[in-house]
């Protein structure tokens, strides 16, 4: 039975790489001659709108991760330490976005966004607020698992007895011990934001997934190139974050 494992691995590899290979194949195909061409990739790189959309999506990813962490991490630590009876309520609120279809959220949030646009202007970066709500359930799970793996109460009490105020407890004692959870929450948030289409499209913002769809209507090859580029970009970001986590763990050994 030694061959079963490699065979399963091979099947999975084929399952994952076949679409990527097809994207690469399509994005380099000259549909007129049937040969190979770099025109689609060139069109992608030279397209200012695509470049802007990539920058917007990356900025959205960074802002979403930052705002999510600023809101969620101290809240979760505070709830664990000071109001544990509220933990079920916070969990419920954080998981709620999973149960509401994006379309319903968009319809509901449009009214709020007229105010957001009024105060902050119509920048695509205002999507950050919706994206924070979108990533909440996944980020909550990652942070919750990390917080459960340490004895938050005892660590906080030890720090308090040594003279630490609550801010010091959160920033210098608890947060450094849940870095792996923070990175996991960041991974998943980046992946979600870079691939999110429904909100940005329905709210008429020009993010990378929206631009890819638009591109597909005119130049299918460039659209394939953009899809592959997005996948590779996301994978690269995730690998970079994962390497960061590994380096941190190794340093702590």
């Amino acid at each position, binding site marked *: 039975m030694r061959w079963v494992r490699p065979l399963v691995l091979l099947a999975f590899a084929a399952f994952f790489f076949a679409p990527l290979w097809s994207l690469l194949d399509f994005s380099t195909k000259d549909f007129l001659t049937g040969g190979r061409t770099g025109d689609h990739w060139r069109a992608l790189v030279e397209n200012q709108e695509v470049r802007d959309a990539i920058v917007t999506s990356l900025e959205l990813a960074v802002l979403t991760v930052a705002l999510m962490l600023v809101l969620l991490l101290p809240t979760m630590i505070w709830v664990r330490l000071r109001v544990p009876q509220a933990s079920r309520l916070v969990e419920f609120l954080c998981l709620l976005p999973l149960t509401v279809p994006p379309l319903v959220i968009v319809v509901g949030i449009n009214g709020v966004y007229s105010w957001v646009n009024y105060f902050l202007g119509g920048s695509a970066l205002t999507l950050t607020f919706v994206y924070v709500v979108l990533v909440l359930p996944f980020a909550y799970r990652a942070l919750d698992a990390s917080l459960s793996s*340490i*004895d938050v109460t*005892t*660590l906080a*009490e*030890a*720090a*308090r*007895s*040594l*003279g*630490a*105020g609550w801010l*010091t407890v959160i920033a210098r*004692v608890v947060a*450094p*011990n849940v870095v792996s959870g923070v990175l996991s929450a960041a991974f998943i948030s980046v992946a979600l934001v870079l691939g999110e289409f429904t909100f940005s499209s329905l709210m008429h913002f020009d993010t990378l997934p929206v631009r890819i769809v638009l591109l597909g209507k005119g130049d299918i090859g460039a659209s394939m190139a953009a899809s592959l580029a997005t996948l590779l970009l996301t994978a690269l970001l995730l690998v970079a974050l994962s390497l960061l986590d590994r380096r941190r763990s190794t340093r*702590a*050994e």
Partner: protein
Amino acid sequence: MKGTDVTGLTVELDDLHRHYGDVRALDGLTLHLEPGELVALLGPSGCGKTTALRILAGLDIATSGEVRVGGKDLTRVPANKRDMGMVFQAYSLFPHLTVVDNVAFGLKLRGRGGAERRRRAHEMLELVGLSEHASRYPRQLSGGQQQRVALARALAIEPSVLLLDEPLSALDAKVRVQLRDEIRRIQLDVGTTTLFVTHDQEEALAVADRVGVMSDGRLEQLATPAALYSSPATPFVGAFVGLSNRIPASVSAGTATVLGQPIPVLPGSAADTGVALVRPEAVSVAASESGAATVVAVSFRGPVSQVTVDIEGTLVIAQVASGIALALEPGQRVSVSVDPAPVLVVAD
């Protein structure tokens, strides 16, 4: 290490009450510690000893009552402003910091310079015998080592009071005894007033200047280990501390008749009849064909052994030299006598 200039302060807990709904975790606890003294709070689970310590540490708030240290009222002062070092039952070292950084943590919060922090941290690690582990992380240490580092960290800030919340209960028996003696040595060295909470009476009797026995949120007795053992003030203390035989006794004019012998009674004893709490080592047995008791079992315990005898339906345990005990056999007739030291007689 008296050079650390730590001077013990008085600690006063006055009429502390702590209620959780209908549960009274503390029900009027009053406890005073002398400067530099180590007091152990002993009692069964749920008696309120940890609640008392947490209120002293500022980690819990009393429903009513007062906490004073060195004459200063700390009742409403938050934990981080109380200047107390604490060692917890659970391992509480910060996992992301090395041993030396853990010990220096409190000093850093106090704004001490890097060189001073390092010097003091190494001094404390030397005190607990772990200076060669300074650059390790907590997960690279054994449980006993972690608790020693926690002790060093608590002492590094030169606390006014040291609080030990069952610091040995997660350790195995051998390490527990070693660390127990080490804690006492260090406490005597630095002279910090210390409150040690434990449910292990051997631990309490071995390390403390005085032991406070608690039950149902109240202090039953606060006395030296010897006084607590030989002169229990309440039936609860008599039954909880050490092993006691419960032998029927009648009391008259301050004297109890126990197994036919007159024995003086301790204050607080029952007025007429009851059971006398008699320590096994106060009971002697001797082989005698005409004796009133029968040997039920002999249990070898090293230099001394336990002999269980039946006296008219009452089982009595005697602790005697193994040489005497091993010469006895179950079923053998023996005579039993009780030392004339005062005993506590309680209602049956």
